[in-house]
């Protein structure tokens, strides 16, 4: 779809975006948002909406006087606004955060881990998000060393099969991590810098072409690694007992309590099928090498 056709469609009936197992219908009249989407999800597989969509999203200027002197962007999910408007020039991070919110609050046919997931040699690595983990930085680094990105944010676990499903999206890097990845992987495709978001300065890293092209290919989980960034540590990998890994993962899942017994069984099977480790790292190259050795 050409850029002009994309704008016309997005501002009218909307465009349909395929994100792993989800179909998102997006209506927007904000050209900068479309430009960033095209850059970071290239080739952007946008279609004229047809059939059923999981999420109906709009990102547009809200009505009212305030928007006239300070342009804003409002995220709507099924016509409802879950957040206050953002400055219009932050429409892309608003779209990404809004989509995360939409998935986390609605996609309950999956057990959703708050984790990065990557794949190598047909098997998946889970990197749960813990405070201070450096998960996104490590995830971006691994993606640029041959790992296929499933997600930086959602481990989508299909309870009935134990399979993890990809949903490759941009990886948001914050503050110091931005330059760390630019140095580590100069080839990384990045979007504009969004200063002073609620999480500080943010730059998004595009999924690799392979990650996008193979986004319908799931994988069975094989490793759970709890990363923790420690600047004073080179790299240290230690086994984690299964019961501890289970407790940490169940606390980390977005919808564990909602799914109840289904999630209990799914996470039990997941942990029993995986080797679990703690990874403390201060050196990104060493961490990548350690994880490559772990899975080889």
């Amino acid at each position, binding site marked *: 779809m050409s850029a002009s056709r994309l704008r016309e469609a997005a501002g009218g009936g909307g465009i349909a975006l395929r994100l792993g197992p989800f179909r998102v219908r997006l209506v927007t009249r904000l050209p900068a948002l479309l430009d960033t989407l095209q850059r970071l999800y290239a080739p952007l597989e946008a279609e004229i909406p047809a059939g059923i969509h999981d999420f109906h999203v709009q990102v547009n200027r809200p009505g009212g006087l305030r928007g006239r002197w300070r342009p804003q962007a409002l995220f709507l999910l099924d016509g409802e606004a879950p957040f206050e408007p953002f400055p219009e020039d932050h429409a892309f991070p608003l779209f990404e955060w809004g989509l995360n919110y939409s998935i986390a609050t609605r996609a309950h046919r999956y057990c959703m881990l708050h984790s990065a997931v990557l794949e190598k040699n047909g098997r998946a690595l889970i990197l749960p998000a813990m405070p201070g983990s450096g998960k996104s930085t490590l995830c971006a680094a691994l993606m640029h060393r041959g790992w296929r990105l499933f997600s930086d944010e959602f481990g989508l676990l299909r309870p009935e099969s134990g399979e993890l499903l990809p949903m490759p999206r941009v990886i948001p890097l914050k503050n110091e991590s931005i330059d760390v990845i630019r140095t580590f992987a100069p080839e990384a495709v990045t979007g504009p810098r969004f200063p002073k978001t609620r999480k500080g300065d943010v730059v998004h890293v595009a999924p690799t072409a392979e990650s996008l092209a193979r986004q319908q290919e799931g994988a069975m989980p094989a490793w759970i690694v709890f990363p923790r960034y420690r600047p004073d540590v080179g790299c240290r990998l230690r086994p984690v*007992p*299964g*019961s501890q890994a*289970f*407790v940490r993962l*169940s606390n980390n899942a977005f919808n*564990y*309590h909602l799914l*109840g*017994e289904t999630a*209990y*069984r799914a996470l*039990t099977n997941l942990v029993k099928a995986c080797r679990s480790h703690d990874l403390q790292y201060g050196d990104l190259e060493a961490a990548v090498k350690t994880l490559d050795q772990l899975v080889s």
Partner: protein
Amino acid sequence: MSASSWQAAAADDLLWEAWEEAFTVYHRATGETHLLNVLPVEILSLLQERPRSTEEIAAELAARCEVVNDGPWHRRVADILEELEALSLVEPVDR
């Protein structure tokens, strides 16, 4: 609380999983998951056979674990029973 006797949650409501060093149990009645070590699991196992008093549990487990059934042991068992009651995994009954 001090109970004359205790009974365990219904066995059909508890989904057990044994790990190398501990146990997890999902309680269907509350929707909660608990991580338990061996002693509470042994207590629940005894109570699933039939209701027992704190004294009976302390005596049977002391023999099984080969420890002295003295005051500190009794208090330890009583404390665990209180914790299990707080988790709705056991409840007091009158026999």
